[in-house]
């Protein structure tokens, strides 16, 4: 399988504080990869580094192009959609307008309409709420809106930052089933950051374990699941 994203010696820092100490990892085209780790390990920063939201050093190669020094808006236009921590919906706009904003960089009107219908098929509740202000949606609906907005870019790679955060278990299950469908049916590659390791490993086929800014373990989800340390520290059994 070919690699859609190859990261070499990635460093990131906030001011003086270095958060990532030279990461090397790659994502398979069409696959789901997860980054596991405790709070403060640098998971969110890794996603932010790919999207150009923090100052970085090193190479980030996205299907043959080095995007490390591009601006966020241009990285997005390359086909990387990022569902940020805390959802980041435009709270004063309607759900429908939020979705339209997701397709902001596209010009193919009929295709946009088609993708809008597709998002509404994945998340029927968004269609019911289409005129409602995003700020008044429930947590689960807001997360669905955030994922839907990212899909409106028609991305090749979807970065997901803690999509399960603050959601009821049933909603989480529903959301992850839909993510699986998006991966399989639309062929969107995914990089998933999750606190909930068991959940993440179920969806992902590849996993990396991040500890204080360095990758300490990597492999297929199955092999990570069997790892003694991971089981004790992150899965809790």
């Amino acid at each position, binding site marked *: 399988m070919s690699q859609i994203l190859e990261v070499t010696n990635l460093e990131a820092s906030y001011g003086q504080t270095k958060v990532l100490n030279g990461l090397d990892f790659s994502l398979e085209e069409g696959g789901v990869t997860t980054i596991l780790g405790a709070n403060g390990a640098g998971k969110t920063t890794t996603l932010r580094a790919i999207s150009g939201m923090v100052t970085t050093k090193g190479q980030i190669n996205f299907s043959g192009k080095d995007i490390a020094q591009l601006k966020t*808006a241009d990285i997005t236009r390359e086909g990387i959609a*990022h569902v*940020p921590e805390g959802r980041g919906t435009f709270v004063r*706009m309607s759900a429908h307008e939020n979705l339209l*904003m997701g397709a*902001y960089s596209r010009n193919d009107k009929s295709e946009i309409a088609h993708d809008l219908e597709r998002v509404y098929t994945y998340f029927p509740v968004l269609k019911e709420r289409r005129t409602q202000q995003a700020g008044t949606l429930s947590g689960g609906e807001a997360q669905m809106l955030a994922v839907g907005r990212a899909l409106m*870019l028609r991305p090749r790679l979807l970065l997901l930052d803690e999509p399960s955060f603050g959601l009821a278990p049933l909603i989480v299950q529903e959301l992850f089933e839909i993510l699986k469908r998006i991966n399989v049916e639309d062929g969107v590659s995914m990089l998933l950051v999750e606190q909930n390791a068991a959940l993440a490993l179920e969806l992902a086929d590849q996993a990396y374990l991040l500890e204080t800014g360095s990758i300490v373990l990597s492999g297929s989800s199955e092999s990570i699941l069997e790892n003694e340390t991971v089981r004790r520290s992150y899965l809790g059994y």
Partner: protein
Amino acid sequence: MDLFLQQILTGLANGAIYACLALAVVMIYQAIDHFNFAQGEMAMFSTYICWSMIAVGIPYWVAFFLTIVISFLAGIAIERIIFKPLHNAPVLSHIVVFIGLLAIFNSAAGAIWDHTIKTFPSPFPEGSFQGLIGMHEVGMFFITLILLAAIFCFFRFTRIGLAMQAAAANPASAALVGIRVGWMLALGWGLAAAIGAVAGMMIAPIVFLDPNMMLGILLYGFAAAIVGGITSPGGAVAGGFLVGIIENLAGTYIPAIGSELKLTVALVLIVTVLLFKPNGLFGKSIVTRV
């Protein structure tokens, strides 16, 4: 009764101008969180540009629309050249630059066009409407109303308008959907400068053209923005009309105020609103997570 009606109508006409300036101030405030103190001087400078064009024989409406375009481009240039490098600078740096801009525009206008007071033509017929208010006030009211409606539609129904709102409300998320946030800010400056230019050109026949013509008017504009709520463009417009009417009625019916102390009405309004309803009549309270 006629006097009352007359004052209300004049208040509405002036209020339309205040509404424009308030809207311009709010647009920049939403983008960069600061009051643009130079908004009035930018409008004054635009009005002088229009005056120069008319003076060399360009027809009024051609000069009017050319001035709008020039102001729009100048607003974009100001953001790109001056404010972009200041993006992460502290509040005081912004304020110093605003005051610097104010001084530069004011003295440049004085140096180029001198300080003598000039008359500025009105595109509307002479005379009055039903003996109540001048035709210029009527025209001014409708021009600004059309402008405000156009701005509203732009923000409500166009892709770029929505993107500008998105960039102002949540820059990080906006960049993540591919919006070039910096350019949206510049566009906001351009629009604010263009709106200000219309306000300047419309009010100039009434207050006459001189480098300090917008000083008082900008104060009313600030009052309007604060009364309406600095976070709410619609509120700023409503605030503009409200301030216009209050100012006129107070000037006419409260003898102690009269026309000399009218400007204090704006200041009293600012202080009162900030004391009792700091978010304005239509603004929403801002909650900051710590």
